[in-house]
């Protein structure tokens, strides 16, 4: 049994020793970190079981290392040694000094930590990294500044630079573009101007002027220069090109939509009850009945518009007599080639959006019908279709030639044969003319002919309407699939005065307004109406 007095020495702040005594005993005294050791040296440089103190065979106290642990005795590492008073033994960072034994204790040992590690070399506690986002380097001010600066540079400064008074070489820099400011693509025609914004945008912060448009679009007529009905309230009487035409909006944005027309045309009457135009909002359910344009004279502007609902006044005074009923008889029309069943296309030959004018030579005389014969007729000779003068000349020539080469008895006898023949031919020609102009066959069949005591025969001038709906751009080409009779009810018409232009109700059987409807074609303003019309006739309500 070893009885040991363990003196643990620690140092206060002044370095003075503080002694603490502890009794330990046992057959052997283990030194180490382990819980079972009698002398516990709590430092990681000391092994779990570092050394052991025991009695030797000679009953002397020995210290021996365990499992080759290092024990420093007298300056050298040894595996064991006898414990002699005054001896210094180093176990890890601890110094064990063997002191003189007493009666109670065979062994007196003082233990002191002599090689403590500096504080910062001890294993550190959990690392404290950034525990908040601001500690992690996130900030608000700098990103705010830089982000805003980048936006100002690219979204404001660079696009505005081409408009500033800068040297030419600076303006030519590719980076100076105001592309970011554009809402969409430009109109195709304006691509040529792409580099010359100033042609349209003449003044910053000012709208594009009509003058700027008209500098290039010189030949385009205005829709209307102003809104006369608006002048009543003196509100925005001027119409600018940019009200309808918007560039830099891509193809979709450039389209002129019905709503733009309706914006003005829906409130015409609201602003001026006596306005010539009628309010319109949609072709399908809010569009006035058509007005038909009648020719009243030889000039293009000699026209008269009559609302289609005013049926009694819808009489075409064309100067012609023509019966569609006769020509469209289901059993056929008698002709030199026998009874011929005629169709609309025989006379109305399609040409572009409309038809070629009907001509006497091509349409009426082609099959031998309506041949203008002399009286008496002569094989192979026909009267010309033309002016009265030409007809009369042809008659004179024909009858004179006939007398010269034929029976002159009817001309009587006299001293001057030539004079007699001329008078006779003139007389025969006048009789023939009377038959043609006044009888029941010949010119009078189709034309309205009057006789003037001074000027003679007079054929009424033709005033055939070519554009019934002068304000609309109707095309027959798109309606080719339909039969003529489905719109034009001419089969029973006996007079050319009859008008058979389909009314809006008929159109609405197939067409509707801007909103889609089942089995109907959606039609907007621009499908029928043109805006910039140079040929716009003087239209007046009568």
């Amino acid at each position, binding site marked *: 049994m070893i009885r040991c007095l363990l003196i643990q020495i620690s140092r206060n702040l002044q370095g003075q020793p503080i002694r603490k005594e502890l009794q330990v005993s046992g057959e052997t005294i283990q030194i180490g970190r382990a819980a079972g050791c009698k002398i516990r040296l709590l430092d990681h440089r000391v092994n779990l079981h570092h050394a052991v103190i025991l009695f030797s065979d000679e009953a002397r106290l020995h210290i021996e290392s365990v499992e080759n642990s290092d024990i420093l005795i007298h300056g050298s590492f040894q595996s064991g040694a006898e414990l002699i008073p005054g001896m210094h033994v180093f176990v890890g960072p601890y110094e064990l000094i063997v002191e003189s034994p007493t009666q109670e204790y065979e062994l007196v040992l003082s233990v002191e930590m002599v090689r403590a590690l500096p504080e910062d070399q001890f294993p550190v506690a959990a690392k404290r990294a950034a525990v908040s*986002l601001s500690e992690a380097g*996130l900030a608000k001010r700098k*990103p705010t500044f830089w982000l805003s600066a980048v936006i100002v540079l690219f979204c404001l400064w660079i696009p505005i630079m081409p408009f500033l008074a800068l040297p030419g070489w600076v303006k030519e820099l590719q980076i100076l573009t105001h592309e970011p*400011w554009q*809402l969409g693509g430009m109109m195709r025609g304006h691509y040529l101007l792409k580099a010359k914004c100033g042609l349209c945008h003449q003044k910053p912060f000012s709208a594009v002027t009509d003058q700027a448009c008209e500098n290039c679009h010189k030949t385009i007529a205005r829709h209307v220069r102003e809104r006369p009905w608006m002048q009543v309230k003196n509100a925005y009487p001027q119409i600018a090109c940019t009200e309808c035409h918007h560039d830099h909006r891509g193809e979709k944005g450039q389209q002129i939509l019905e709503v733009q027309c309706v914006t003005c045309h829906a409130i015409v009457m609201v602003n001026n009850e006596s306005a010539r135009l009628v309010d319109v909002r949609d072709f399908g359910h809010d569009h006035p009945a058509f007005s038909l344009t009648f020719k009243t004279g030889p000039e293009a502007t000699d026209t008269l518009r009559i609302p289609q609902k005013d049926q009694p006044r819808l009489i075409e005074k064309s100067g012609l007599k023509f019966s569609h009923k006769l020509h469209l008889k289901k059993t056929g029309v008698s002709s030199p080639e026998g009874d011929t069943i005629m169709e609309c296309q025989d006379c109305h030959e399609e040409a572009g959006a409309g038809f070629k004018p009907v001509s006497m030579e091509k349409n009426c005389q082609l099959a031998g019908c309506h041949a203008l014969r002399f009286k008496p007729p002569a094989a192979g000779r026909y009267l010309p279709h033309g002016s009265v003068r030409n007809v009369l000349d042809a008659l004179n020539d024909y009858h004179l030639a006939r007398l010269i080469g034929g029976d002159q008895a009817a001309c009587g006898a006299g001293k001057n044969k030539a004079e007699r023949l001329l008078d006779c031919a003139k007389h025969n020609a006048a009789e023939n003319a009377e038959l043609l102009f006044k009888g029941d066959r010949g010119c009078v069949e189709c034309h309205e002919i009057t006789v003037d005591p001074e000027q003679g025969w007079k054929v009424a001038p033709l005033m055939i309407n070519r554009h019934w709906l002068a304000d609309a751009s109707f095309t027959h080409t798109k309606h080719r699939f339909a039969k003529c009779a489905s719109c034009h009810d001419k089969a029973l018409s006996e007079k050319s005065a009859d008008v058979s232009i389909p009314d809006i109700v008929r159109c609405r059987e197939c067409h509707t307004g801007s909103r889609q409807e089942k089995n109907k074609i959606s039609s907007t303003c621009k499908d029928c109406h043109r805006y910039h019309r140079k040929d716009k006739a003087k239209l007046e309500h009568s």
Partner: protein
Amino acid sequence: MLRSTFLEYKDYHYFKASGLLVCLAITAYFFDSHPAVGFGGTWLGYLLGILSTLIIISQVLYGMRRRIAPKVLRKTALPAAVGETHLHKADQWRHQGATLQGFLSAHVYLGIALIVLATLHTGFQFGWNLHTFAYVMVIAVILNGCYGIYAYLRFPRLMSDNMEEDNIETLLQKIADTDKQASAMSLQFSDNIYQIVQVARQETRIGGNFFQQMLGYQRNCPTTKAVRQLKKSGSNLKNDELKSFNALFSLMVHKEELVAQAWRDIMYRARLECWIYLHAPSAIASVTAVAAHIIAIFFYG
């Protein structure tokens, strides 16, 4: 009585006002012209644009108000006597709080209404240009703000539940203290156990960069790993060591809980605050973009 949140301020006063504004805008839009004409250039387009701009200005004013308010408060509280100062301050805060809550309520609901107004203002015409960019910026700021609403409603409660009386600094001290105890305790065991405890002590990290804070834990957390390893090591110990080992093990488990608690606090705080680091700069940037958009529009007339 539970204190009402900014969303419920004055019986949803601003919610109703903003809802009415949105309904009016949508009705006007569908009763107005064909949307394709749009491009914000119709009378309704301009009206929506002006309204949106006014709302954006009010949003920025809220931000300014929020920053300026505490400074003003400090100045006004200074000259008063000490007792009065506290009373005055309390009144001021109450007054200030109420006003700020009202401002925040308006800020939130008008911001959400701005999504609809700004979208209708565009007429659904988008492209690769400044105008769409300004719109996207505004919408991004609002959506970011919506996350802010969520964050403010969710995380403060979780944070207080998580930390109770602690804060991150006291928690770090507790962890350090636990580390010291564990280290000292581990000395009596084999080098292996000692090493496990030391590695956990040295390599456990609390906090980190933005992503680590948002994630809320240390990947392969050394403390968790140490607890797992200690569990295995404990089975090889002798009976006389087990008592001490159990103490060490429970200390390490405690440390693991403390570490997780600290990380949770960091995560909640990061998730609570992260949006504002985007919201404030992008809000000012979006105001700049909107200003550029307005200048660009009127530059061309």
